[in-house]
């Protein structure tokens, strides 16, 4: 392939000569950005030589290429910036020689160019063990987009069914995941007795192995490959392409092999030209000092090709630090030094959380190890501390990395450990968390961009008050994103320190929190938005305060939500009593309490769906969703449903959704109580109660828990002596198991407790806060909630119950009310001045049902109509 040069010659320099960069990988590119920042492009003519045929891309996310196959998604280089800064990027031009005496380099094409400053950023290459047969075209490495293209091409051959990754380290497992994604029967072959030997100890490696095997990957540890035999000449056409023979006499057939057995610094230019005089490390790599200088004058090395203090850093963050330091050096600022990097890592490997901090193996003399192991859930955690158990030296986390950030801060900042270090990794105990205030200013909050607590705090002090400002100013949180929660806490902490009140205002129209507005509305008996706005707000209102206030008004008085003065407040779903879909049509979800439904009612659902040509699906909440209803069809659909005895299911409202139930003791041989009976009673009682967020319940007839009650806001499980009540569970984005709130309750007490908890939640929760987040925000935790609800420690129990009674009394089925009101029905037309429907709503048929047409399908359909 021929080489290309992008960018124009820089004629405006102060003519300090050429600044030459070899390698346009992640670190080489980062260097160019820092160089521009330092104004080096105005002093030097910058030349970047790249061996690959494309500008730098994000190797860290390389594997995502198998999902989107779009190289541009990985691109890191904004060519217009290179161009406007007069950077000349020479793609596909490997540098083959350095002459450090005459200060010049020579490219593969024979071109020679002189340099004033030279930066080596040649990265590393995958190590392939010298096994005979490894040259077979089905043997590959995993480093560049070109490698991935070749792997893809092989995987797509019809006969290729099976793939082996040699190497069970971090990258090997990532490659294995990729082979799984490609649909191959995947094996991992590791020479060492365990997976991820660098980061994990033996026990952690074993748990990881089991978890990965559960995902269908076969892991062979302690296997040394002796030979790779090609079977292409075999008479049997079904045979696999390759056979791997191991030293223990066993063998493994496969169709392709990906080597991921570690990396080696790319030091070829120096190794092949010893006369260049640049010193290499004992085990390869280019030796550098704290200023990233090699022993040759004006020659620097950064990134994975560099060796500092006998170490190669195979992560991008230390490479970025070197790039910044090197750019500063060349610009004449010699203060910054590279003093090593922390190699702790947290990542998800094939869906398994893995974290490793510091001395994971407990190698330090006299160190102590604390272990926690939960084989049922596949969780393993280990702490390594100093002999006096005062300092954390390292940690291993497999299966659960929630404690990672906390532990990393303790480790990096040498903070005294609490009295019982094991409490840091034990589940279900109040953990001593590292508050931001306890961290020193030097504590690294974002390791991707090496941003300290101090840097974030001073950015806040200089006016970057929002997370997005902080991202722009410091880059914190813009890499892997793992530090986002800590960045947010740091900003809040600093705002508080600076004397700002951390703003809990609902929006620009109300300088009150949701809780404050709730009290105002209750205490002053406010019934409309405008009343509240005039008395306690300003301006017009917006899409945040209007639905919030609508919800509070409904939680207090339960008036019909489509009263004229309430209509304009409703969120789009409440506005038409249905969930709006992507094409502007609506879904229809009738209530099916407890999931129990008669044959007649099922038939009605079928008939309605058929008559109006709706898509039907059983929901995750034990009922039926009818999709694709045009707004103007909703009244007719609901008229039929209401006639058949259905009520609205409030799938659109922030209110009770479903009470999921198992079949219970009427039928089930294990059932100890009537779960359906309780579910019906609860669904009937709380239907239509508007709350800060949706509420879901579940009732199981025995502890086998078929209704998954413990994942709901309220879960009831029958016992021999009554009901166990679990509260504040959640599925969704952040699942949380419900906690056991009270045991063996009789039904009346149970209902009373739920009444109280729901009203207390409505009274005190923030907007759009599910019960799980609310419960976590309650100071005093579960015990506090139990005290308020069971012991009535605030003396409000009676009031809460009375408020709930009022809501229950005022319940109306919103659809039954709406279809009987001709004024209301006027709104259910697409056009105010025509009976037509929206011609942009177009369906196609898939699996015998409708679905919205895609744009391409729509234009195809239109073409047919025109023709």
């Amino acid at each position: 392939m021929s080489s290309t040069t992008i960018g124009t010659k820089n004629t405006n320099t102060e003519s300090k000569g050429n600044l030459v960069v070899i390698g346009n990988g992640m670190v080489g590119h980062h260097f160019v950005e820092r160089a521009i920042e330092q104004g080096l492009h105005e002093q030097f003519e910058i030349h970047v030589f790249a061996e690959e045929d494309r500008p730098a891309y994000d190797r860290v996310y390389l594997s995502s290429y198998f999902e989107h196959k779009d190289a541009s998604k990985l691109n890191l280089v904004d060519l217009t910036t290179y161009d406007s800064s007069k950077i000349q990027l020479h793609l596909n031009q490997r540098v083959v020689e350095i002459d450090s005496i005459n200060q010049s380099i020579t490219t593969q094409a024979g071109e020679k160019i002189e340099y004033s400053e030279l930066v080596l950023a040649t990265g590393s290459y995958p190590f392939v063990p010298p096994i005979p047969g490894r040259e077979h075209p089905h043997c590959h490495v995993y480093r560049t987009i070109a490698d991935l293209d070749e792997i893809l091409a092989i995987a797509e051959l019809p006969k290729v069914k099976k793939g082996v990754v040699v190497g069970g380290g971090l990258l090997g497992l990532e490659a294995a995941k990729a082979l799984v994604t490609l649909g191959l029967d995947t094996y991992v072959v590791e020479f060492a007795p365990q997976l991820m030997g660098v980061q994990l100890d033996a026990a952690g490696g074993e748990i990881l192995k089991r978890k990965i095997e559960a995902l269908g990957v076969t892991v062979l540890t302690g296997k040394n490959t002796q030979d790779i035999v090609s079977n292409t000449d075999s008479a049997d056409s079904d045979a696999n392409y390759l056979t791997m023979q191991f030293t223990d006499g066993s063998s493994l057939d496969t169709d392709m092999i990906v080597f991921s057995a570690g990396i080696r610094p790319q030091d070829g230019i120096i190794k092949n030209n010893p006369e260049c005089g640049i010193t290499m490390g004992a085990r390869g790599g280019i030796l550098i000092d704290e200023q990233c200088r090699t022993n040759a004058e004006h020659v620097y090395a950064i990134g994975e090709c560099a060796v500092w203090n006998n170490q190669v850093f195979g992560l991008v963050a230390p490479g970025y630090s070197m790039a910044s330091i090197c750019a500063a050096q060349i610009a004449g600022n010699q203060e910054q030094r590279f003093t090593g990097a922390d190699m702790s890592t947290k990542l998800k490997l094939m869906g398994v959380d893995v974290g490793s901090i510091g001395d994971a193996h407990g190698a330090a003399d006299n160190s102590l190890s604390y272990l926690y192991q939960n084989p049922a859930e596949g969780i393993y955690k280990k702490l390594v501390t100093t002999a006096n158990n005062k300092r954390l030296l390292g940690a291993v986390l497999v299966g659960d990395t929630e404690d990672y950030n906390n532990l990393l801060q303790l480790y990096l900042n040498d903070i005294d450990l609490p009295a019982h270090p094991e409490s840091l990794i034990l589940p279900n105990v109040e953990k001593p968390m590292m508050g931001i205030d306890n961290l020193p200013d030097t504590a690294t909050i974002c390791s991707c961009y090496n941003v300290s607590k101090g840097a974030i705090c001073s950015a806040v002090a200089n006016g970057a008050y929002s997370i997005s400002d902080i991202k722009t100013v410091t880059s914190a949180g813009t890499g892997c994103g793992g530090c986002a929660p800590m960045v947010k806490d740091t900003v809040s902490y600093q705002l508080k320190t600076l004397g700002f009140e951390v703003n809990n205002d609902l929006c620009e129209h109300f300088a009150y929190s949701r809780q404050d507005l709730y009290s105002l509305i209750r205490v002053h008996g406010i019934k409309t938005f405008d009343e509240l706005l005039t008395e306690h707000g300003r301006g017009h209102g917006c899409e945040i305060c209007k639905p919030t206030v609508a919800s509070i008004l409904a939680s207090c008085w339960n008036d019909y939500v489509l009263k004229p003065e309430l209509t304009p407040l409703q969120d789009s779903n409440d506005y038409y009593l249905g969930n709006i879909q992507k094409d502007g049509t609506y879904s229809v979800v009738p209530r099916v309490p407890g999931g129990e439904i008669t044959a007649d009612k099922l038939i009605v659902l079928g008939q309605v769906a058929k008559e109006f040509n709706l898509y039907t699906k059983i929901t995750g909440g034990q009922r039926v969703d009818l999709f694709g209803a045009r707004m103007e069809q909703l009244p007719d659909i609901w008229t039929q449903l209401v006639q058949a005895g259905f009520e609205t299911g409030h799938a659109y409202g922030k209110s009770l959704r479903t009470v999921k139930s198992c079949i219970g003791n009427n039928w089930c041989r294990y059932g100890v109580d009537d779960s359906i009976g309780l579910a019906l009673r609860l669904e009937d009682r709380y239907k239509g109660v508007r709350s800060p967020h949706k509420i879901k319940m579940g009732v199981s007839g025995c502890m086998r828990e078929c209704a998954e009650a413990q994942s709901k806001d309220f879960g009831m499980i029958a016992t021999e002596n009554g009901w166990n009540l679990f509260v504040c569970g959640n599925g969704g984005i952040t699942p949380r198991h419900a906690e056991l709130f009270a045991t063996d309750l009789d039904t009346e007490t149970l209902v009373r407790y739920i009444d109280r908890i729901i009203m207390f939640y409505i009274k005190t929760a923030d907007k759009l806060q599910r019960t799980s987040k609310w419960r976590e925000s309650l100071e005093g935790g579960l015990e506090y909630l139990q005290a308020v609800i069971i012991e009535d420690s605030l003396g409000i129990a009676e009031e809460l119950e009375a408020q709930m009674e009022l809501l229950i009394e005022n319940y109306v089925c919103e659809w039954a009310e709406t279809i009987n009101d001709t004024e209301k029905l006027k709104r259910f037309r697409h056009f105010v001045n025509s009976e037509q429907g929206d011609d942009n709503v177009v369906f196609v048929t898939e699996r015998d049902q409708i679905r919205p047409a895609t744009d391409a399908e729509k234009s195809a359909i239109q073409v047919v109509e025109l023709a």
Partner: protein
Amino acid sequence: MKQHTICRLNDIIPDTGVCALIEGKQIAIFRTKKNDLFALDNYDPFSQANVLSRGLIGGTMIVNETGTDEEVLYVASPIYKQRFNLATGQCLDDGNVTLAAYHVALNNDTVMLQNF
């Protein structure tokens, strides 16, 4: 340039919108609490659905050219919540997007689209 009769003022609940079909085009007409009227395209370019008449109307303070505070009224799309200035059609969340805005007025009790 033609005038079009759309509906009676009372056909629009204050602080909400309706959609009108004018010469085959879908126009969202909004009535504010103060009975001011606005008209924009009904097509939401972000969701590619004809839904803007069903959005919530909101207001936000901006500093105008003369340096004084002014409340801009907008409609928030019911699908992905992008906001559009009712008077100009300018999207407040993406400077590159502007909807067509139309002139709409009240003639006695009748809502009229003008200069269409």
